């Protein structure tokens, strides 16, 4: 039942809401530009209220962009209503039809398309099998668990063989275990059908583990687009670095630009070289150095970049998390393979060190200091 895969493209898309009472304007999405390849699964990631749902709803046709154009499979669909587009949405609240059985819910889209009865039956059965709900076909959706409802919603969208599948936080109502299962399930189904999919979430782990590429948004603006790997290891801003994973920041002054693309800089009187992706960094100024917990290590006091005392130690089995209070705030150091290592205990004085090759230079930011 694989439909042919199509690309999705947004060109300078903006959406401004006007509050009917206060007349205040909310810039939900500003100047969004991106292209999604056929068969790709892309996540929209960002904090609550950053415009993820609005972006998705514009692609689905539920909101008209204030500006810009949307293309699906090369066709301009900006003004097409939802029923005129080959998209299918899995809503955050599922939007199941409560007056129909599971089967009827799934068959709805096919009935609207006026397919012959036998074909409808066959396709509904096949799709219910795919999501593992065949034995619940006659139930009313009100009497299903959250995970089952979610799968009905997915089946209802998949059965019409959409060109683009849109998912708005489909797993947010589920418990942690089910969430993990469904994540894998969705990924499997999406890949096997080769559907282009856009997935909205505010959960970075979900985004990382699921997608081919991640689009990070904040305040209606796209901050970075890249593979999970890119986003995690080579973020372009303090915000993205902080949003996609735990991170420590150190202020540095920039001395020179190395021809191979890294910076020479100074931290706490020590010189080092660090890579960067950002382009708006001026030599001679100050910047921020980011380091992930797993790239940090502990040394005796005075030997690393920053001295401090251990404030807490959390044993996680495969690793140990050590929280160190320093002049740059509390920094998390992750020590892998703790077995056989001597790890500093609470109250001990330590120094934090890192491998130059694993840290990156980011531009300073005013608004994002607190995050």
């Amino acid at each position, binding site marked *: 039942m694989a439909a042919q895969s199509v690309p999705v493209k947004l060109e300078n898309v903006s959406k401004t809401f006007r509050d009917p009472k206060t007349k205040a304007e909310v810039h939900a999405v500003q100047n969004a530009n991106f292209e999604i390849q056929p068969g790709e699964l892309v996540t929209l990631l960002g904090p609550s209220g950053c415009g993820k749902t609005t972006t998705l709803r514009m692609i*689905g*046709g*539920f909101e*008209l962009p204030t500006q810009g154009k949307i293309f699906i499979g090369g066709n301009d669909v900006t*003004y*097409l*209503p*939802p*029923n005129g587009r080959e*998209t*299918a*949405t899995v*809503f*955050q*609240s*599922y*939007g*199941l*039809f*409560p*007056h129909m059985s599971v089967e009827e819910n799934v068959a*709805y*889209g096919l009935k*609207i*398309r006026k397919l012959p009865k036998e074909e409808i039956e066959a396709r509904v059965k096949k799709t219910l099998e795919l999501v593992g709900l065949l034995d619940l076909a006659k139930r*009313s*959706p*009100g*009497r299903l668990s959250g995970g089952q409802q979610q799968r009905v*919603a997915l089946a*209802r*969208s998949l059965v*019409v063989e959409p060109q683009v599948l849109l998912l708005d936080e489909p797993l947010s*109502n589920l418990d942690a275990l089910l969430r993990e299962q469904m994540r894998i399930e969705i990924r499997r189904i999406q890949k096997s059908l080769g559907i282009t999919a856009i997935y909205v979430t505010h959960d970075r782990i979900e985004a990382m583990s699921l997608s081919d590429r991640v689009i990070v948004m904040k305040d209606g603006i796209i901050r970075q687009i890249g593979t999970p790997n890119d986003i995690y290891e080579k973020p372009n801003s303090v915000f993205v670095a902080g949003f996609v994973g735990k991170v420590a920041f150190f202020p540095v002054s920039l001395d020179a630009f190395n021809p191979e693309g890294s910076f020479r800089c100074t931290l706490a009187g020590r010189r080092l070289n660090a890579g960067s992706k950002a382009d708006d960094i001026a030599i001679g100024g100050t910047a921020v150095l980011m380091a992930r917990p797993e790239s940090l290590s502990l040394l005796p006091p005075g030997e690393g970049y920053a001295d401090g005392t251990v404030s807490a130690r959390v044993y996680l089995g495969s690793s140990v998390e050590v929280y160190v209070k320093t002049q740059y705030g509390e920094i998390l150091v992750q020590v892998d393979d703790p077995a056989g290592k001597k790890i500093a205990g609470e109250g001990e004085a330590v120094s934090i060190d890192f491998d130059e090759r694993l840290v990156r230079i980011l531009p300073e930011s005013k608004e994002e200091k607190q995050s």
Partner: protein
Amino acid sequence: MFTKKKIIAFCCACLVFLAVDIWMFSTVKNSFAKTIAGVAVTLAKTIASSAPGADESVPAWLDHLNTAYPGYSFFYCKGLPGEEGFREMGGDSSLAAYWAQHQSDEVFVKGVESASYLEVYTAPETMKIGAITGSLLFVPIPAETQDSAAGFLLMAADSSASRSFFSLVNALAIIAFVLFALAFGIATFSRDPVTGYVVLALFAIMLTFVAYPLFEAVRLTFITNGRFTFDTWKTILGNNQYLLALWGSIKLGLCTATLSTIIGFVFAFAVSRTSMKGKKFISALATMPVISPPFSLTLSIILLFGNNGLITKQILGITKSNIYGLGGLTLVQTVSMFPIAFMTLQGVLEAIDSTLEDASLDLNASRWQTFRSVTLPLALPGVMSAWLLVFTSSLADFANPLLLAGSYRVLSVEAYIEVTGMNRLNNGSALSLLLLVPTLTAFFVQRYLTNKKSYVVVTGKPSMRLSNLASKGMQRFLSVFIGIVIAFIILLYGTIFAGCFVKNWGIDYTFTLANIPEALTRGKDAMLSTLTLAGIATPIAGILAMVAAVLIVRKKFPGKRLLEALIMTPYAIPGTLMGISYILAFNKPPILLVGTGAILVINYVIRELPVGVEGGVAALRQIDPSIEEAAADLGADQPTIFKGIILPLIRPAFISSMSYTFVRSMTAVSAIIFLISARWYHITIQIYNFSENIRFGLASVLSTALIIIVLLVFGLMRLLVRQSEHLEKTVSIR
């Protein structure tokens, strides 16, 4: 967006509208032109009859005409041209010159000939004579014998006033067309044309059937003989009789509202704050008066307490009892309207969080202290709004005072008498507009009360357990009080039922079954037409209400607030005003509906729409919008979504809106009494006629029949709604 099909559809619609537009405005112009011509002819006849016989007084007469009738010019000839004794007597010089130049023209010959047969002739073309551009009339001056013409008067009438009126009408027609084309264009070429069309259609309906009639009613009170004056309002406000009626209405409203609120509060308190038994029965019986047909309670009050009343005359032996007037009206209105207060207050009391009262009791306050210092203050805004609701209903009430007012005057009946008895439509509409003033005031005060952030502690869902705030003695007192009220209500309904089987109430109480066949044969036509029209109105109102609710809750479009206000307006308008405004608006072109069944159906639909829309809005707000979005996403268009998703989901609201419309249409009086015709009669009016003619037996039979129908419909509705109850539960599941 701009597809060929859409452009063609758009052009066709524009052409159709253009045709309708031209037709409508030309009928307006024609009827205006006819009136103007009629006025000129009447004037001409008056002038002709004042013509002096003696030659010497002619110049003075002509002078008098010139000064008395500006905008006209005259030229007088005695005898007929070509005959012996023809003389030009003089007059306006340019008219004389025109006459000299054109007297052998075909039109002039014809005009003079008509005059010789004593007929006024108006030249078909507009002429320009001197300073006057307008029509030329040939007015015969009759001889003393009255059987032939002694001469004729040429009269030129200036028509610049009507010409400017015509250009105004033309401008309006063009504006109407442009507005239509614009709105329709937006609707057609927008993303969601179906919604666009529906919005346009609703706007058209509401403007035609709400705004236009009201405008006509207001206009009439300021226009007398085609002129703007305050005469009507001066008459109304300067006349003791009318002011008395206004005061009478207010006095009655005050009495009824206060009494009803007290009784309603006692009932609500007993149901929500005591452990009294039979609460279900009390609630059920107390709602009876709300749905029972008009006249029925009044009828039974008359049967019991009237001049020949069972209780007053037969039991107590009072011969000169007088139930007619303020006392009787207060009694019957209180019985019929206290349930409104009861239901409102029950909601209010159940919404108050009982833990507050428990806390007070916990602090060793007595039950009475708790009631006084916690419950009552918290319920006060609710009490106020219950009072206002009853007050407005009492003012708008028409049926009860019609039968029971006697010499006591109230506005609604006064307006009815002005219109049907005196044929003074302007006074009638002024009086009914007067009725709107206290009603609107109360309406806005209530809006203010409900909008104001009051300190009512509403927990959202009624508390499961409510405190018991009545002591043993108090509870006994409440039981007795409620028992008396309930017994009285049962007595009233029992009387109607008994009335069916009594030969001649008040005089001859022998048992008979004869009333039933007679009432049914005589009331058959009225009953059939009432059922037919209510049956037609019901689905229309139901669907329209649900469609409007969807627009209000789910769609964004310009003018939404205005449309909402227009839809809700009939809720605040007394039926009397509605009826009068409808006869004013729809007894003339371009929309001639008076006398048809359509005007009744439209009136039912428009009047009951607000309640249906409110129900639909409340139901829709409970439903996750992503359900509809999912359907659209799967390819369903707007009509399919409405039919297949929305309507089934808000079925309870849909059904109750329909049954409400049906019952209210079956029991309507105040508006439709102006609108019924011999062909389309109404059963309640038939009941009224029987009562007026002292055929109480027949009135009782029809009332009972109507009560049974209404109860059946409500029972059916209950059944249908219960079937979809499982639905309501699952709708909110996310």
